[in-house]
C-alpha cells in the first residue's frame, strides 16, 4: 500500500495570492493513498525541505508530491531532499501549480480548483512510480567548437588553457570570422585586427587546439560526454601541410575575377587565394568556381609555380570522425539580405552600402586601402547619411522584429571616425531610438553628437532616390520638428539588421537542439542557464544565441568554456534513469524504434522464448542500450506493438494522469 505525502508551496505570494493553498492541502488530504498533506511558505527553503524530510520519516512515506513551481526549477532540490530522508529520488513528483496555474489565472476559485486537479494528477502518477537508479557513462575529454570567429576562438583558448583538447571547425578557409572584417571596435576604437589576430595566432600555436578550417559538420551522434561527429574537410586543392603561404601562386593565377568575400565582394581576388594577410591557417585555397584548371582542365600555373609542391587538383572532400564530450556552437551572424528594402536603393546604386561594407572601405586592408572613397566614382564623399534600424525592430514582416543591438554603437563609431578623419564631411544619422547601454557606451555616443557634431535626426527614411547628378536624395522625416526633410548625399550607409548564420539551422537539427522563429538557438534558461542549450552537452557562444557585441560575445565564450571544462573534468556522468525499456514478450522486432532513435541506442538481438509445452522459439527483439538512451520517448510512441515503455514516464502513468485530469 502506497503512502503518499503532499507538500503545497506558497512560493511567497507567487502561488498563494491566486491559489488557496490551505484549501488545496485540505482537499488533497482526502485523496486515496494520501497520508499527509501540508502547505508552507517556501518549500524549497531549508525549513521547507526539513518539513518534507521529517514527514517522510514520520509517516513512512513511499512517495511524495510537491505542488510548487515548474519541475525545471526545483525538481532536483526536492529529489535530493527525499534521498536525504531515505526515499528513492524518483518517487518524487512535482505538480506545477505556479507556471501552469497561479501565474496564468486571475480567478482565485478557478485557480484553486485547477491546482487541486494538477496535484491529483501528480498523485495518480506517483502511485505508479517505481524506484529508479541512476547509471554512469564515461566522458570523452575533448571539446568541439563549431565556428572560428571571436566566440569560437575565445572558447577554444579557454578550454585549451585548462588542459583539454579542443577542435575548431570553421567552414571558411580561415578562422577570424566577422571580427576580422571589422576596422575599429567600440567604445575604445582600437583596431579590430590588432586585438583579434594575436588570439588567432594563439589558437594556431596551442598544442591542444586543432583548427579544422574549410570544414563542416556532417553528422552528429551520441549524447553528452559521448558525441561522435563526422566532419567534412572540403577539398581546398592545396595541401595544408606543404603550403608555406608565400602567395607566389596568387601572383601568377590568371583567373582574377572571383569576388573577394572578405571585402564584402567589393573587389576581386584570384582563384587561388589566401583570404587575408593574417589568415590562420596561412594556407591558400582554390575556388573551384573560378579555377580554370578545375573548370576546363587547362592551366595548372599555380602548380607549376608552387615550389612547395602543395597544389593538388585531384583533392577530394575528406571525412573525419572524432569523439567529443562537449560541443560549443559559435556560428555567428550575417547581415540580412536587403531584397525586401527596395526603398533604400541598395540594388540600384553602388553608393548605398551596408555598414559591414563601410568597415571594409575604411580598413587599411580593404579595397580602397583605408581611404574612404565612394564606390561609384572613387570620389571623396562629402555628405554621408546613415540609416539605422534597416530591417531591425521591423514588425512589418520585411525585416526582423528584434533589435540587432550593435548598430547604434557602430553607427556612432562610423560617424565619429569619418568626422575625425575627414572633418569637411557632413554626417547625418537617422534613428528611431539610440540605444547605448553598456560601460562607456553612452559617453561614446554623446561624444559623436557633442564633440564630433554628428547630425542625429530622429525619424525614419522613406526613400533614397539616385539622382541624375550622381548624388542620392534621402527623403526622411524629422519627428522632433515634425517635418519632412531631404538630404542630398554622396554615400548612404545602411545599419543592416543581423541574423544568425543560415547554416545554424542545419547544425541545430544535427545537434537535436532547439531554435527559435528567428533562427537563434534557444538557451536552456534565459536568465539562469544562458550559455547552455536545452540539449545536454551543447553550449552556445556569441550571436548564434542572440544579438550581442564583441565584449558580450567574449564573456559568453569564456562562460561556455567554464561550462565545458566543468563537464570535461568529470570522469563519469550520472545518467538519467528515465530511459526506454523493451518488453521482449511483446516486441516483434519490426525495427521501427531503431529508425526513430536519434541516439543510436537501439539494436536487435535474437532471443529464445519458452512457448510452453517444452517448446521454444527464437525471436528478434529490440534492445535499448541504457548508457546511450536519453529517455526522449520517441521509440515508445513509434512502437506499433506498445512494446517499449519509458521508465518514470510509462504509458500507464501518463494515461493515469490524463484520466485524472479528465475526471469530473
Amino acid at each position, binding site marked *: 500500500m502506497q503512502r503518499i505525502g503532499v507538500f503545497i508551496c506558497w512560493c511567497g505570494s507567487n502561488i498563494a495570492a491566486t491559489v488557496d493553498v490551505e484549501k488545496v492541502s485540505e482537499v488533497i488530504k482526502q485523496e486515496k493513498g494520501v497520508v499527509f498533506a501540508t502547505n508552507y511558505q517556501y518549500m524549497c527553503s531549508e525549513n521547507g525541505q526539513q518539513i518534507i524530510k521529517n514527514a517522510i520519516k514520520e509517516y513512512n512515506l513511499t512517495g511524495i508530491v510537491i505542488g510548487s513551481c515548474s519541475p525545471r526549477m526545483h525538481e532536483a532540490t526536492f529529489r535530493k531532499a527525499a534521498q536525504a530522508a531515505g526515499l528513492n529520488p524518483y518517487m518524487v513528483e512535482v505538480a506545477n501549480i505556479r507556471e501552469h496555474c497561479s501565474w496564468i489565472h486571475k480567478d482565485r476559485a478557478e485557480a484553486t480548483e485547477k491546482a487541486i486537479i494538477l496535484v491529483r494528477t501528480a498523485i495518480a502518477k506517483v502511485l505508479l512510480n517505481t524506484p529508479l537508479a541512476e547509471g554512469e557513462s564515461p566522458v570523452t575529454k575533448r571539446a568541439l567548437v563549431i565556428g572560428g570567429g571571436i566566440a569560437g576562438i575565445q572558447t577554444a583558448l579557454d578550454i585549451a588553457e585548462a588542459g583539454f583538447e579542443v577542435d575548431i571547425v570553421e567552414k571558411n578557409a580561415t578562422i577570424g570570422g566577422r571580427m576580422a572584417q571589422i576596422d575599429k571596435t567600440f567604445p575604445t576604437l582600437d583596431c579590430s585586427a590588432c586585438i583579434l589576430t594575436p588570439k588567432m595566432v594563439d589558437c594556431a600555436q596551442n598544442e591542444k587546439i586543432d583548427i579544422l578550417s574549410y570544414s563542416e559538420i556532417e553528422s552528429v551522434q551520441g549524447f553528452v560526454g559521448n558525441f561522435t561527429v563526422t566532419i567534412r574537410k572540403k577539398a581546398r586543392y592545396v595541401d595544408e601541410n606543404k603550403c608555406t603561404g608565400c602567395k607566389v601562386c596568387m601572383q601568377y593565377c590568371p583567373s582574377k575575377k572571383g569576388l573577394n568575400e572578405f571585402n564584402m565582394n567589393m573587389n576581386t581576388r584570384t582563384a587561388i587565394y589566401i583570404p587575408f594577410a593574417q589568415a590562420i591557417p596561412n594556407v591558400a585555397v582554390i575556388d573551384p568556381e573560378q579555377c580554370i584548371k578545375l573548370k576546363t582542365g587547362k592551366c595548372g600555373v599555380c602548380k607549376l609555380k608552387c615550389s612547395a609542391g602543395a597544389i593538388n587538383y585531384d583533392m577530394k572532400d575528406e571525412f573525419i570522425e572524432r569523439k567529443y564530450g562537449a560541443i560549443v556552437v559559435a556560428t555567428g551572424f550575417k547581415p540580412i539580405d536587403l531584397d525586401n528594402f527596395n526603398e533604400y536603393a541598395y540594388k540600384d546604386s553602388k553608393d548605398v552600402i551596408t555598414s559591414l561594407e563601410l568597415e571594409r572601405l575604411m580598413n587599411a586592408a580593404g579595397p580602397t586601402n583605408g581611404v574612404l572613397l565612394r564606390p561609384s566614382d572613387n570620389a571623396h564623399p562629402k555628405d554621408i547619411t546613415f540609416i539605422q534600424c534597416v530591417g531591425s525592430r521591423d514588425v512589418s514582416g520585411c525585416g526582423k522584429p528584434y533589435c540587432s543591438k550593435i548598430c547604434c554603437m557602430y553607427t556612432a563609431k562610423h560617424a565619429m571616425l569619418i568626422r575625425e578623419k575627414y572633418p569637411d564631411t557632413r554626417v547625418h544619422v537617422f534613428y528611431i531610438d539610440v540605444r547605448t547601454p553598456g560601460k562607456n557606451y553612452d559617453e561614446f555616443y554623446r561624444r559623436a553628437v557633442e564633440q564630433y557634431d554628428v547630425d542625429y535626426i530622429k525619424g525614419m527614411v522613406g526613400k533614397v532616390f539616385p539622382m541624375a547628378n550622381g548624388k542620392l536624395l534621402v527623403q526622411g522625416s524629422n519627428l522632433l520638428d515634425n517635418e519632412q526633410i531631404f538630404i542630398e548625399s554622396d554615400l548612404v550607409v545602411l545599419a543592416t539588421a543581423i541574423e544568425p548564420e543560415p547554416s545554424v539551422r*542545419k547544425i541545430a537539427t544535427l545537434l537535436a537542439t532547439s531554435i527559435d522563429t528567428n533562427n537563434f538557438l534557444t538557451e536552456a534558461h534565459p536568465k539562469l542557464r544562458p550559455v547552455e542549450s536545452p540539449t545536454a552537452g551543447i553550449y552556445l557562444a556569441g550571436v548564434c544565441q542572440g544579438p550581442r557585441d564583441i565584449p558580450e560575445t567574449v564573456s559568453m565564450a569564456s562562460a561556455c568554456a567554464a561550462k565545458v571544462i566543468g563537464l570535461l573534468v568529470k570522469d563519469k556522468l550520472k545518467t538519467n534513469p528515465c530511459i526506454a525499456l523493451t518488453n521482449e514478450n511483446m516486441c*516483434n522486432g519490426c525495427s521501427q524504434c531503431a529508425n*526513430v532513435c536519434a541516439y543510436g541506442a537501439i539494436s536487435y538481438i535474437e532471443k529464445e522464448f519458452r512457448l510452453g509445452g517444452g517448446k521454444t522459439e527464437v525471436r528478434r527483439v529490440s534492445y535499448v542500450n541504457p548508457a546511450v538512451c536519453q529517455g526522449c520517448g520517441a521509440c515508445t510512441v*513509434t512502437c506499433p506493438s506498445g512494446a517499449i515503455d519509458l521508465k518514470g514516464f510509462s504509458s500507464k502513468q501518463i494515461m493515469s494522469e490524463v484520466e485524472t485530469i479528465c475526471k469530473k
Partner: protein
Amino acid sequence: MVNRDLLLKRAEELFDAGAVERVLGWTNGEFSYDQSPAVFSNKEDLANFVYDAFCGANLSKYLIEQTRQKKKTAVFLKGCDTFSFNQLLNEKRINRDFVKPIVIGCEGKLDINKIKEKVEGVIEDVSVEGNTVTIKTLDGTYTFDDKREFMLEKCLSCRGIAEVEDAEEIDIEHQFVSDGDRFSMVHKLENMTEDERFAFWQAELSKCIRCNACRNVCPACSCVKCVFDNDQSGVWTKAPADSFEEQCFHIIRAFHVAGRCTDCGECSRVCPSHIPLHLLNRKFIKDSNSLYGEYQAGVETDAVHPLIKYTEQDLDPTKAVAKTEGSNE
C-alpha cells in the same frame, strides 16, 4: 492465363524436387466461393489445392508462422500480396531464407457479396470466361458480360505487382491493373460536412461485431501480443463495452497500421458486416502522401515510411494540421 493446373503442377514439382517442405495456397471452404488459405505439407495434400476467382485471400501473413518454424515454404503471391510480402520483410517479420516466393499474375478476384445482390437463389457455381461471369443458382443461370461489376474493391484499385527479389514468376503478363482513382471515395467523405461524415462512420462502425477478423487478416497487424488481447494493457476489457469503443477500435487500428498499411484491402474483404474499413486506411495514406510526399508501403524492403522519418523538408506540424483540416473545403 494462371489456372489451378498450372500452380498445382509447379507445387508438385517443388515437392518432388525436395525444394520446399510446405506450400502456402488455397483450399475449398464451406461453399464453392469461400476459398481459404491453406498450408500443404506434402504432394498428396495438394489434391485439395484450389485456385479460382475467389482466391482473394492474401497469403503473406501466414509466412510469419511458417518461417518461424523454419520450414522452407513456397508461397503464391498475387499482385496485392507482393506489397504485403515486401512490407513484412521490411518489418523483419518473415525469415526470407525459408521462403520460395512465386509471383502470379491475377486478373481480379470476385466479391461474392456483389454477386449475391444480383442473383436469386442459392449459388451453386460461378465461372469466369474472359470478361463474362456465369452464375448458376438453384433458380437458374445468370450471365453478365462485365466482370468488373463483381470484382473485389481491392481489385478495382489494384496497383499491379511489386518487385519481389529472387522470386519465380508465373504468367505475370496477365495482370489486371486499375486505372481508377483509389481515393475517390475518400474525396467524397472529405467533401461531406462534419456531421454527415460522423453519421456515415457511425452507421458503418456500429455494424461492427468485434469479431476481430480485420485484425486477424491484416498483414500489418502482426504484433506478438495485440493490446486488445493483453490483460496487462488496460484496454482489453473496454473494447467490446459499447458502440463508442467499437468506433475507437477501428480508428486506433488505422493509426496502428498507418505508414505500414499497403492498402491490400483484406480488412474490408473479410468484414462480415461489410464495413468499408479500407477507407480509414486510405484517408491516412492520402494525407501522408499530400503532407510528406508519395509513399507506397511494400514497394521496397528497406524503405523507412514517412511517419517515422525526419527530413529537413518535412512540413511544419502546425501547417500539416491546417492542410489536412483544409482538405474538406
